């Protein structure tokens, strides 16, 4: 049996040969330096570098160090990591796929039946884990009307073309010559683009345009309901189950299950507003409140616990100990192993 460690691009692989091959993988990019792996490691083989330093300053090292001479490749770190930055494989199979090992119960899903593809979740997601694609109907499918230009009256001034919000009017301009002294040869209205707003009619100095919108006088006349199709996809690797999508969605389409329950407290008296927690938190829990008017006193720091997953990165990063993260429940799949149960329960404060 031999244990080796390879560090490549800040990613770590610890491998132990023997009857079964055990490999522990660490993906630096996914790590939030929360410190849970260090806390749960039964042999103190993991050291997590200072959270603020790793997030705020440029560092050449990985966010965690694994001492391969101490590591027993048990996999507890991989099962507790809320960001899936660690994974233990036994003979090529992740222990997160093995029933006998407990794993965090966490998920985020968007119900396609309820989603209207408004993109609020995509915009709000702190990890840019959500991609919303949508296909909108053509404008012409949502309007109906009639439009016509009396070419005998039209003087080709181009005002309608300049003002049309739908770019539906096009003038075939030309340089006037002695045998054809006209500034344009034709005016074309693209009825697939026209939205029958009537601006062209109202700007025309010669009353050359007649336009009638059929919807305005008759309401929903002849128009089918707008059909928006699309898809909303959550990248499970990037998702941290913070709940932003669930809270911001106007249609209650996302459902998020968080790995931990707890309480987040912050002492505004001690806080010096250094911004470390704001930058460290993978869930965008913290922000600096802006006064709505001059002279208004606002708290130094604002937190919204609805987005907190109680990973503890903020508490670990705060240089003045102004933040406290209490974990009251760890949500994990059942295990028969008392040692693993105890390890998971030990993360409660």
């Amino acid at each position, binding site marked *: 049996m031999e244990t080796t460690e390879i560090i490549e691009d800040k990613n770590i692989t610890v491998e132990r040969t023997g009857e079964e091959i055990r490999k522990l993988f660490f993906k630096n990019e996914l790590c939030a330096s929360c410190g849970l792996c260090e806390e749960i490691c039964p042999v103190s083989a993991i050291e997590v570098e200072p959270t603020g330093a790793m997030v705020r*300053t440029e560092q050449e090292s990985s966010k965690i160090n694994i001492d391969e001479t101490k590591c027993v490749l048990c996999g507890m770190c991989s099962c507790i990591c809320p960001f899936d930055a660690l994974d233990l494989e036994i003979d090529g199979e992740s222990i997160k796929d093995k029933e006998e090992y407990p794993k965090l119960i966490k998920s985020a899903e968007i119900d396609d039946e309820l989603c209207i593809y408004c993109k609020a979740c995509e915009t709000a997601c702190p990890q840019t884990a959500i991609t919303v694609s949508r296909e909108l109907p053509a404008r012409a499918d949502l309007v109906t009307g009639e439009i016509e230009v009396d070419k005998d009256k039209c003087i080709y001034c181009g005002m309608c073309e300049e003002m049309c919000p739908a770019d539906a009017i096009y003038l075939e301009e030309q340089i006037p010559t002695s045998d054809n002294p006209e500034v344009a040869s034709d005016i074309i209205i693209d009825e697939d683009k026209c939205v029958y707003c009537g601006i062209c009619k109202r700007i025309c100095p010669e009353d050359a345009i007649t336009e009638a919108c059929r919807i305005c006088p008759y309401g929903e006349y002849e128009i089918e309901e707008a059909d928006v199709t699309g898809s909303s996809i959550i990248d499970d690797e990037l998702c941290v189950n913070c709940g932003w999508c669930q809270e911001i969605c106007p249609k209650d389409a996302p459902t998020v299950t968080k790995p931990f329950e707890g309480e987040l407290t912050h002492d505004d008296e001690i806080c010096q507003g250094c911004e470390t927690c704001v930058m460290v938190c993978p869930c965008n829990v913290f922000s600096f409140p802006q006064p709505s008017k001059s002279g208004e006193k606002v708290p130094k720091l604002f937190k919204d616990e609805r987005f907190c997953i109680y990973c503890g990165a903020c508490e670990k990063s705060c240089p*003045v100990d102004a933040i406290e993260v209490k974990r009251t429940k760890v949500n994990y799949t059942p295990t028969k192993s008392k040692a693993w149960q105890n390890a998971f329960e030990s993360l409660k404060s």
Partner: protein
Amino acid sequence: MTIGLVVHPELCHGCGNCVVSCPVNALRSSEIAGGKGPTDDVEIIMIVEDGEINLRNSDLCGKCGTCVETCPVDAIKLEDVE
């Protein structure tokens, strides 16, 4: 591998950004929180003396990186101190 606070006085311009931006300093000294150097002998992490940065009590450092961000000349850093 241990990350700790390191200063490079030869690079320092003496602006004092690090001293006043440091949340630990600001909490310990109301003068620093108010934006100037301390006139009393309160224990703080770093101080500018004779135009140069000096580490006083690096053991107080929370390694948050705020000072590193405010230094215009890379004279204060969080780096491997082993």
